[in-house]
């Protein structure tokens, strides 16, 4: 069927700068750049371009740039090119539209409406260059009281298993299959270097990652891929994935063409078969059932690992989180509606769920009201873009945050949103060996470590400015936030005052 869509992007080649080295031809897995068979001229098929920026950034003479396709739409604010393209794609295939990465729509970003406090006159600010600043966080349940033997100066009460992160930033779950093994290795290396944790996602733990298992959170999702006693006991913690911000309420399909030998071995499923995660866990139809799964994992690991439960931020998330805490979760992971994904139905990604900022504030408040906040740790994810977002999240009640997209961007991802095709030119969201080899785990890890180290310094600076020297004192400290451009209901849910108050 003839494609009635225009290209989204146009490849601009500066003929004066181009030295015809063909690097762009070799680099583009989408086969945008090519040599004309008849004339031998170097050309570009813009229709295939996804704007991953691999060619523009590697071109030795900077001869390439990508621009939007110049075609204008009819000028309607309703029938934009994008809206029409979706209709055309479905008219041509009858399929469910698939999309990747996070929700790109222009919904309110509440982070940008929350301003941070700083000390002036009455309370001295602290200089993190001279004074110690604690950014280490401990995740897990906390006992309601501690008994100490004062004679021997030891804690007598049994402590529940906990995770200790030197920085309040972990890496979100990304499965082998959705991302390459080199991506996971880079995150594992970075997690070890930073003293934090990566999450292997629901696709099992590849044997090459076992040396980093002490920095791994292993996930149990509805498909139970790769889940056996060895896997459960290998990681530092177990995460039950109920939902994901990018696609709340639905399961996952890893298409058969991505199930190569290594993915198959790690997921423990046959090669070439669709890997289907059912929408629900079929052993969880209630909070009581969740409790049953949590404790089955605790039994399977001798009560030595904290169990996290991850849910997408949705309506009534506060009540759901209360149930999760009561079901025995040690850590609650809230994933906002902007969270990324390797593939999700576009309508789900763009329309389902709620912002992490509101969900986090609502959950923290509800758990406090019910007096159970300390029984559980809160981890927020779903588009934390910089250190200020992390500080805001902690002030809204998060113990720590998880980053996915930001870590991938550090490695080279340019958010083209074409992960599902499996042709990631950066070697991140692909299983093609030639592409995967472009991502050197050590070099990618260095970039991620740099990013998080930079953030951590900024977090210390911002905390110091507030006169706070330990991140524990910032947690849920909403007096450090003021709203701008928010209505009363939004302020109420966020639990913050308006700027000037």
């Amino acid at each position: 069927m003839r494609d009635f869509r225009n290209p989204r992007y146009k490849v601009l080649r500066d003929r004066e700068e181009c030295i015809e080295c063909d690097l762009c031809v070799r680099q583009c897995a989408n086969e945008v750049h090519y040599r004309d068979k008849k004339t031998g001229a170097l050309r570009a098929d813009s229709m295939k371009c996804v704007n991953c920026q691999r060619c523009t950034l590697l071109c030795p003479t900077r001869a390439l740039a990508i621009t939007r396709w110049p075609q204008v739409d009819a000028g309607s604010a309703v029938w934009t090119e994008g809206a029409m393209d979706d209709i055309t794609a479905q008219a041509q295939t009858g399929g469910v539209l698939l999309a990747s990465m996070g929700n790109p729509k222009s919904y309110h970003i509440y982070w940008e409406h929350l301003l941070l406090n700083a000390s002036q006159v009455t309370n001295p600010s602290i200089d993190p260059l001279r004074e110690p600043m604690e950014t280490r966080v401990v995740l897990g349940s906390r006992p309601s009281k501690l008994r100490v033997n004062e004679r021997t100066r030891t804690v007598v009460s049994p402590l529940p298993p906990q995770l200790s992160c030197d920085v309040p930033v972990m890496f979100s779950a990304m499965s082998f299959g959705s991302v390459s093994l080199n991506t996971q290795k880079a995150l594992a290396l970075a997690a070890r270097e930073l003293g934090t944790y990566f999450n292997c996602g629901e696709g099992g733990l590849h044997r090459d990652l076992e040396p980093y298992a002490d920095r791994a959170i292993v996930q149990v999702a509805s498909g139970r891929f790769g889940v056996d006693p060895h896997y459960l006991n290998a990681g530092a913690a177990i995460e039950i994935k109920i939902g994901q911000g990018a696609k709340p309420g639905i399961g996952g399909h890893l298409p058969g063409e991505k199930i190569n030998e290594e993915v198959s071995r790690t997921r423990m499923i046959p090669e070439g078969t669709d890997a289907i995660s059912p929408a629900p866990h079929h052993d969880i139809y209630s909070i009581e059932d969740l409790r049953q799964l949590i404790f089955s994992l605790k039994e399977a690991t001798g009560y030595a690992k904290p169990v996290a439960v991850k849910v997408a931020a949705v309506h009534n998330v506060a009540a759901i989180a209360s149930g999760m805490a009561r079901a025995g979760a040690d850590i609650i992971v809230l994933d906002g509606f902007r969270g990324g994904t390797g593939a999700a139905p576009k309508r789900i990604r763009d329309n389902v769920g709620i912002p992490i900022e509101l969900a986090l504030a609502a959950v923290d408040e509800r758990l406090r009201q019910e007096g159970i906040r300390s029984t559980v740790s809160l981890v927020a994810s779903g588009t934390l873009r910089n250190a200020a977002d992390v500080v805001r999240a902690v002030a809204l009640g998060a113990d720590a945050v998880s980053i996915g997209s930001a870590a991938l961007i550090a490695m080279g991802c340019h958010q083209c949103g074409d992960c599902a095709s499996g042709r990631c030119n950066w070697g991140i969201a692909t299983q093609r060996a030639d592409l995967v080899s472009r991502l050197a785990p050590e070099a990618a890890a260095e970039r991620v470590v740099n990013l998080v180290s930079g953030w951590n310094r900024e977090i210390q600076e911002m905390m110091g400015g507030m006169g706070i020297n330990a991140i524990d004192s910032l947690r849920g400290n909403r007096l450090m936030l003021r709203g701008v451009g928010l209505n009363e209901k939004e302020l109420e849910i966020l639990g913050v005052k308006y700027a000037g108050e």
Partner: protein
Amino acid sequence: MAETIIVELGTKHFQEANAAVRAALAEADTVCIVEAYAQRYLGCTLPAGKRLEIHGTPGNDLACYMDGGEVEVFGSAQDQTANTMNAGTVVVHGRVGDAAGYAMRGGELIVRDGCGWRGGINMKQYGGKCPVIVIGGDAGNFLGEYMAGGIIVLMGRAGDHLASGMHGGVIYLRRNNTPAVVPDGLDLRELTDEDTATLGALLARYDACFGTEPHEHASVSEFVALRPASSRPYAAMYAS
């Protein structure tokens, strides 16, 4: 090492019960549990070489993540028996509840009577591992939903929505119990020689477990095989 240790559960909480069972398993390869009153997770991660004999009614998640052990229940079991089981054998002299064999990857679950809803959901096979569920009685709705591998033998009647979303493995059904209309994406066929051999061995295994006469419940010739038409049921579902 003692041959068999007897552990009485009574009204013990599951944590206490499992701790007692684990302690006994450290001392003996076979532990006989008596007075089981719905304690969950019995046989959780049980490794090869260990055996539990359970008298009474074990609770949910019996033999979850089991890794090669043997569990024999002299009575019925509750929900999620053999949940995400990796290897081993579960024999139930009675019936099992809902979601038996969920995401089971290996080993066998042999049930004398029927099973509840959602039996064998998301069962999968891999490499040399091929999970087996044999149900002597009737099964509830959604048997074999999302089934991605393994073998289910059903001697009695199936409920509604049999094998919806099935994309791997095989369900052996008796010809007179097959659905009137075979759901889209599935393929109902007569047994091949290989099927006949596999099924014959499983029926013999059932007889050996429960002391029934060979093929007292069913003979191989009465069965047909239900398989998915494709291992990629959703290949054409998406557009981008």
